[in-house]
């Protein structure tokens, strides 16, 4: 593992950025990764098919009857086996990917013995206890690349999981869903293209040729696993690398290496710089070693001091210094370091209870009884309030309904508010009739009656209503004994307004007075 050959920029990323990077990595070397997964899977598939075929040729089954029936009834077991072997099948693409990432062009590992070692290492536990490990992609490099097992592997995995464990779990869920979506999508596509009814024949009813077809039908599922696997492995590896960059400060190391490389031509100061870097690394990694370093300060030359200052300046600027604003609440002291008085009080109470538990039990019973009584009273009060509210509802509904009528101030372009009507309206009506201004007189009469109906008798009308709609609204309020007077007055009004037909003066005045007698307070 040569860090300087790392093919990606070493910096600390969030888990989700690391996953994005993993997708990019998978796309970069997709074909080789996919083939590295698919070819071994196909080999397994062919071996299993050949084995089953050979088993079928045997006249006497070597398997117990129940097992042989189970085996024979569904070649889907093949698919299950290949799916179960995924932790092993993922190893070669990961191994290949690690070589790509660190630009290792040596091909010494490409030997069947090496491959066998790769697949055999810790295989039993990978396929049994750890098969359903939800963060498998994150833990895989520990097994494959670090070759750790047992307690060391467990500790290592725990360390890796901190920070990016949830992302590893989500990765597995998402990739599983994608696999399922691809399989389901293909099935639906075929059904929609073929236009046939979907029908699942029970496998135990299938003939030999149908079962042979089933052997082929699982091939697309294997292909889908191979299509998804590079993304899964690369994303997991990216999470793993991200965690190691964070833990082992690869980014800092690479910066130092780069600085050292840039200063390489100045061979005279190289030993000095390397000494300073080593010193500072010691300071950085082990803060306690600062004291000895300071102790050596008088022995440093001027150039060494300059170099140290430069490095310090660099280290005090980003990305080496990360300032964060912490906005959440945090205990300044440990919770157990609370006020000693409280603690002593609690201790004394505890002691009291221990000593006199027999005497206090009656006190606790009384308190419990009081609490129950209080609870009962609360329930009674709530119920009483509820009942009174329900009883009052019908009574309250009428004033609410009346109040909710938003009486318009203008209807059909006519102002019908109290302020818009003249003080002595009857005299004004007579004056208008005397003047021959029937329209003015009728308008005053109509407006006045409309005002009484809408504002005093709360007839619900809307501003866009026409005359006939107002008449209909008044009809709905059947408790008003208008005896058709309002309808007749409306008819005379619309005849005058829209047909310019003069109404009989005596009749409309009679109607107006009759209406006013009923409606006026």
């Amino acid at each position, binding site marked *: 593992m040569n860090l300087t050959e790392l093919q990606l920029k070493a910096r600390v990323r969030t888990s989700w950025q690391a996953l994005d990077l993993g997708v990019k990595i998978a796309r970069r070397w997709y074909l080789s990764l996919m083939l590295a997964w698919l070819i071994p899977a196909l080999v397994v598939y062919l071996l299993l098919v050949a084995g089953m075929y050979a088993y079928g040729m045997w006249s006497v089954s070597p398997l117990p009857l129940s097992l042989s029936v189970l085996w024979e009834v569904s070649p889907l077991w093949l698919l299950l086996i290949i799916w179960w072997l995924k932790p092993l099948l993922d190893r070669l693409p990961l191994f290949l990917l690690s070589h790509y990432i660190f630009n290792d062009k040596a091909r010494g590992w490409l030997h069947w013995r090496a491959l066998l070692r790769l697949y055999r290492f810790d295989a039993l536990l990978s396929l049994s206890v750890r098969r359903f490990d939800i963060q498998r992609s994150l833990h895989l490099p520990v097994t494959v690349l670090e070759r750790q097992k047992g307690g060391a592997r467990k500790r290592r995995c725990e360390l890796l999981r901190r920070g990016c464990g949830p992302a590893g779990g989500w990765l597995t869920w998402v990739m599983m869903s994608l696999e399922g979506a691809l399989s389901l999508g293909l099935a639906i596509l075929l059904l929609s293209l073929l236009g046939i009814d979907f029908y699942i024949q029970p496998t135990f009813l299938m003939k030999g040729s149908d079962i042979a077809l089933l052997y082929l039908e699982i091939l697309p599922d294997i292909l889908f696993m191979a299509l998804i696997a590079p993304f899964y492995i690369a994303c997991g590896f990216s999470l793993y690398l991200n965690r190691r960059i964070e833990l082992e400060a690869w980014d800092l190391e690479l910066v130092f290496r780069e600085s050292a490389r840039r200063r390489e031509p100045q061979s005279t100061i190289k030993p000095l710089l390397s000494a300073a870097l080593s010193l500072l690394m010691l300071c950085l990694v082990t803060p306690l070693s600062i004291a000895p370093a300071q102790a050596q300060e008088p022995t440093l030359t001027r150039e060494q001091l300059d170099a140290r200052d430069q490095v310090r300046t660099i280290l005090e600027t980003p990305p080496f210094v990360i300032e964060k604003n912490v906005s959440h609440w945090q205990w300044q002291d440990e919770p157990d370091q609370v006020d000693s008085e409280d603690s002593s009080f609690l201790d004394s109470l505890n002691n009291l209870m221990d000593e006199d538990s027999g005497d206090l039990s009656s006190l606790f019973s009384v308190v419990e009884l009081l609490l129950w009584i209080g609870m009962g009273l609360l329930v009674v009060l709530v119920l009483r309030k509820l009942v009174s509210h329900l009883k009052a509802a019908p009574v309250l509904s009428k004033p609410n309904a009346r109040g909710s009528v938003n009486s318009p101030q203008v*209807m*059909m*372009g*006519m102002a019908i508010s109290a302020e818009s009507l003249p003080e002595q309206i009857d005299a004004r009506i007579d004056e208008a009739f005397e003047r021959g201004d029937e329209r003015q007189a009728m*308008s005053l009469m109509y407006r006045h009656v409309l005002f009484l109906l809408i504002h005093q008798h709360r007839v619900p009308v*809307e*501003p*866009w*209503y*026409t*005359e*006939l*709609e107002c008449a209909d609204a008044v009809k709905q309020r059947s408790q008003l004994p208008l005896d058709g007077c309002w309808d007749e007055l409306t008819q005379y009004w*619309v*005849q005058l*307004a*829209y*047909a*310019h*037909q003069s109404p009989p003066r005596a009749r409309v005045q009679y109607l107006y007075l009759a209406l006013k007698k009923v409606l006026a307070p």
Partner: protein
Amino acid sequence: MTQPTRATLTPEQAHDHIDFLRNRIQALLIGQDDVVDQVLIALLCRGHVLLEGVPGLGKTLLVRALAHCFAGQFRRIQFTPDLMPADMTGHAVYHMQEGSFHIRRGPIFTNLLLADEINRSPAKTQAALLEVMQEQQVTIEGESHALTPPFMVLATQNPVEQEGTYPLPEAQLDRFLLKVFIDYPTLDDEARLVRQVTSGALDMGDLEPGDEETLQPSQILALQAAAELIAVDEQVLNYAVRLVQATRQTSSILKGAGPRASIGLVNAAKAWALMNGRDFVLPDDIKQVSLPVMRHRILLAPESEIDGLTPDQVLKQLIQTVDAPRT
């Protein structure tokens, strides 16, 4: 064809004729009183009607009943995908013996034309109706032939079966004065209908020509003239125009109704006023006919369609935003 003479009617005669038409049709088409009224409105103001409803609600019966009420001609064209314009309008035929072309008139030369399932024919065939509906004349071989009034097209379409149909283009829709929805009858009406049909009281044979009293085409023309004479106050006319203009200014409508809608609105309101025994138009008449006049002339905005609104719902909201006329 000879033009029928146009007689003038007294208000009482007009009401009698309208009642006669209304009662005769309602006796046959039970439970669709509003539809009958709207078809009569279109007849009185020389308009055409687009009837929409699921099969079996009596769309064809309505038209046949209307034809049965007056002594005019009635023709029916079943629109099919292979129907050609010349199949409707007619064409020129070469007469071998005379050595000249003769015009063979199509079924469109009638008084009442039932265009059954009009959306089953492509736009080319539908467009053949444009001239006859607007100008009331047909051009065959470059020669215009006027139709004998009264002329009315009643087209039907089914809102459910949309497969293999050709939606009517905007220009064609605009030619229809009213778009009328025929809905299912109420429980009581349907019970009455079933009772009458099963007891033999209502027979489709009633629609065959007989000795019953019918109106003459001239009387229909007189009714149309009477509707024209209905007075419309300037404020009511402005109200109708404001209603139509409001359809062009709201964001819930992508394309509002055109001036033909304003004209149709006032004409239909006049007919409705006549049918209600008035000689002047009220704002309520405008409101009453505004939905059937405008519902097919507007195009809803995509947001309204996504919200599941229908043209009727949008128009009802719109009507509430336009104040009744100032008097």
